[in-house]
């Protein structure tokens, strides 16, 4: 859940720009609104439709896509790393080749494996280089079909030059899927507390569902 606030907007007539009065609050975003003629609005089917001042996007993946969601930070030199939303994992055993996308909550959301007969049927071996390449191709396709255009691949302890890994990653490159996730967006530091509105001064250290409270 994430809340978005309506821009505070000032109307202006067609030609002249109304000078906005100087405001003390410099961080307020004041921008002008494109004029919408009033006579049309009178007959509009949505003339009394009240857009909510606070919009809540219920899409649980939205903030991760915008890189606004909080990432787990982990320790500085921790391996395996923890700072990701979706992680790409590649594994091959003596019998099978598998790759999957893991969400940071531990959920495996997408998987492609030679254990699926749909894939194994067309392969010669389930653990050779062409199996890795094909698993990469299929998982990359499934990622694109599920809207995952950037996933995190932990290179620690992986030999990227090894033929199986190299051909597997090559397929992700071909599908235009980034193997690094965007950096988490954090607000610019500004000192001070807004005592007039909701602030988190000396609040009890307890996990909350919503820290925005607008």
């Amino acid at each position, binding site marked *: 859940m*994430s*809340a*978005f606030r*309506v821009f505070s*907007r000032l109307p202006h007539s067609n030609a002249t720009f109304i000078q906005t009065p100087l*405001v*003390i*609050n*410099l*961080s*307020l975003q*004041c921008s002008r609104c*494109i004029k919408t003629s009033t006579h*049309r*609005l009178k007959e*509009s*089917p*949505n003339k009394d*439709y009240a857009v*909510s001042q606070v*919009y809540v*996007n*219920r*899409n*649980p*993946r939205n903030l991760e*896509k*915008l890189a606004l969601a909080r990432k787990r930070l982990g320790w500085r030199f921790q391996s395996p790393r923890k700072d990701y939303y979706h992680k790409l994992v590649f594994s091959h055993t003596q019998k*099978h080749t598998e790759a999957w996308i893991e969400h940071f909550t531990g959920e495996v959301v997408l998987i492609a494996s*030679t*254990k*699926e*007969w749909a894939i194994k049927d*067309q392969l*010669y*071996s389930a653990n050779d*280089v*062409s199996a890795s390449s*094909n698993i990469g*191709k*299929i998982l990359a396709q499934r990622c*694109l079909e*599920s*809207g995952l*255009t950037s996933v995190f691949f932990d290179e620690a302890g992986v030999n990227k030059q090894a033929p199986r890994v190299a051909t597997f990653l090559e397929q992700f490159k071909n599908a235009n899927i980034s193997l690094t996730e965007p950096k988490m967006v954090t*607000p*610019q530091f*500004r*000192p*001070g*507390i*807004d005592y*007039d509105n909701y602030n*988190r*001064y*000396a*609040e009890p250290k307890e996990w909350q*569902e919503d820290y*925005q409270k*607008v």
Partner: protein
Amino acid sequence: MAACMTFKSKIFNGSLAKASKTFLVQPVRNRWKPPDRDLEILPSFAERLAAWKAKYQLPASHGINIGLKYDGVNQNHNNIERIKKWMEKRKPLETLAHNRQLNVDMERVKEDWHNESMPQHVRKISEHYGIFKDLFDGAHFFPVIPLDVAYDYDEELVTPVRYGNIIPACETSAKPSVSFKVADDSLWTLVMSSPDGNLEDSSKEILHWFVGNIPGNDLNKGELICNYLQPFPPKGVGFLRYVFVLYKQDRIVDFSSIKKPENCLSLRDRSFSSLDFYRKHQADLTPAGVSFFQSEWDKSITSFFHHVLDMKEPAFEFIHPPAYHPEQLDYPHRLPFNVYLDNYRHVKDIQEEVLKRKLKKVDPMRPPQPRPKYPNLDKPPEYLPSWLEVREQEVRLGNAQWSDLYKDKD
């Protein structure tokens, strides 16, 4: 030591006799005292877990399967018969595999996948995107019928709707083509809705398209309950989900209560709840297929709001949650006093200070002066104590609150 003991025994004579222990009393002023363990009995892990679960409950219908019967496929990859068959079949592929030129046919993989593990995989990714949580209050179903939805891109190409792929809003203006492989005598209902698109009430959906009583897979013969309205993700809110759900009907259903007037453009009329709809018709309807996509604001949405919906276009910005501040200390240890005190000032005071500083510099008769490339090249003209000198450097660099000094417009 002995002197101390006598002093102590004088006061706590009775208690010492009861405990029958010898106390080692140290002649130290700030003596560490063991904490009173009886007063702070912490809850056990099980108790804390129970409290957490009571507080953060899953949706009420979580874990209920409302879909068609699906047993899962026998994915036994160790099936000897199947492996033997495969060993025979794979022989001609050896050279290709050896030369790393073996490429699987993606269309065939997709087809086989539809017959095999597709319902499991799609259910998983739908759950990941919160489709079941927001549409059916957590009740899930296995989408056993593959639902192919595609928007025309141009005369040759189409943009398919899969399981959360991103489609630009400008490509979704015309209604998509829908196909699903079913028997001709069966009846189906197709609903397209957006769980994020309702701008008035975020707990409801917006109905984009509704076709009921579809005989077989011919959408044109179905009863149009609500005409197609293109997705309109508002500006500044990111990606919205648009979900197509295919229901299997047991008999012809009367949808007259939710029938919308022809070419309905009123967003309030299109407010919709899949859960209420399903609860009302659950005797006749069973969800059987799902596909969804995500879309983001682009320029075409502005004209759509102005010319089709005929309303002002809303725009939003994300609000970061406010920073956490611990309780202010009277004597903070080893913290620079100016930085510490600034953190606890009212933002209005800080902004006023910045504005006054800005107004000193601004001249309405002259154009704004460009910022120097190396603002801290020169030292401050007069002597300043180090904390003020550092502050002057911050001001020149435009760090933290001072970045407002160099913004031309707000």
